[in-house]
C-alpha cells in the first residue's frame, strides 16, 4: 500500500501539473479538495482520466467520486480493491 501511495502522489503531481508540490508535501490522509490541496472540478476529471489511463479502472458510478477521491490513501484503497476483484 505504501508503495502505491508513493507512486500515486507522483502521478497526481504530474497529471495535475502541481509543480509547486513535492510528493512529501501531500499527506496520505490529507483532503485533496477544498481545504486540503485545493483541487477543483477539472482536477477531479483529470483524476478519473488518471485512474483509467494508469490503472485501467473506469469509475462505474460518478456518485462514488467524492468518497474515492477524498485523499491519496482512499484512491489507493479503491485501486487495490478494484485490482483484487
Amino acid at each position, binding site marked *: 500500500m505504501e508503495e502505491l501511495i508513493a507512486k500515486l502522489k507522483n502521478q497526481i503531481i504530474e497529471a*495535475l*501539473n*502541481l*509543480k*509547486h508540490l513535492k510528493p512529501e508535501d501531500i499527506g496520505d490522509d490529507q483532503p485533496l479538495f477544498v481545504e486540503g490541496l*485545493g483541487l477543483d472540478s*477539472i*482536477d477531479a*476529471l*483529470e483524476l478519473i*482520466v488518471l485512474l*483509467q*489511463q494508469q490503472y485501467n479502472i473506469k469509475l462505474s458510478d460518478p456518485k462514488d467520486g467524492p468518497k474515492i477521491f477524498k485523499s491519496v490513501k482512499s484512491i489507493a484503497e479503491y485501486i487495490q480493491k478494484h485490482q483484487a476483484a
Partner: protein
Amino acid sequence: MIFINQYCHLQNRSFARQGNRVFTFASGTLDDFMEEAFRWLSLSYPKFYKMDHLSKMGFLASEMLLKDMPLLPRYLPDQVALVLSNAASSLDTDLHFAESMKTIPSPALFVYTLPNIVAGEICIRQGITGENAFFVFPEFDAVHMADYVSLVMESEKTLACIGGWIEVMGDHHDVFLYLAEKERGDTGVEHTAEQLHKIYKSSALWKN
C-alpha cells in the same frame, strides 16, 4: 483624453517594459522560459502551472505590465476593462487537445480551447471585473485596438483598460500589452492608433 501609461512586450523569449529589455532566457524550451520568467517575477500562484501557453504568456505579460503598480488600490474592480486580440485564437491548445483525443481527452486541456480564457485568467489574477473583449485579426491592428479601447473608455464607469495582442502558436510568441488610463502618467502618451503602432513596433524584440 486617454493615455498609454505603461506597456510591455514579450517576444523571442525576452521581456521589455517601456521599451527596455528587462529579462531574457534563451536556453531550453518555451516552457522553461515561461517558468523561469515566473520565478524571476517572484510570483506565487500555483494555478500558473495548469495554464496553457496562451494563458501563461498573457499572465506573465500582465504581471510585467502591472509590476509594482497593481490596479486595485487605484480603481474599483469594475472600473478596469480588458481588450485583447491575436491571430491564432486558441489553435495552439486546440491542436494539443486534438492530439490528446487519440487516447483519453484531457479535461484540463479542453478548458483552454477558447482564446478568451486568457482574459479570464488575467481578470481573476488582477481582480478586475470590467468590460472585456477578445478579437481575432491576421496581425496586430492598432487602428481597431485604439478605436475599441476608446469606445470602451467613453463609459464613465471605465477608468482604465488593459489592451493588446497575445499571439502564441508553437514556439512563436508575440505578446504586447498596454495600460490605457484617463489620467496621464509620468511617461504617458496619447492613446491613438499611430502611437500604438509606433510603440508596438519600437518595443519589438526580434533583433539583438
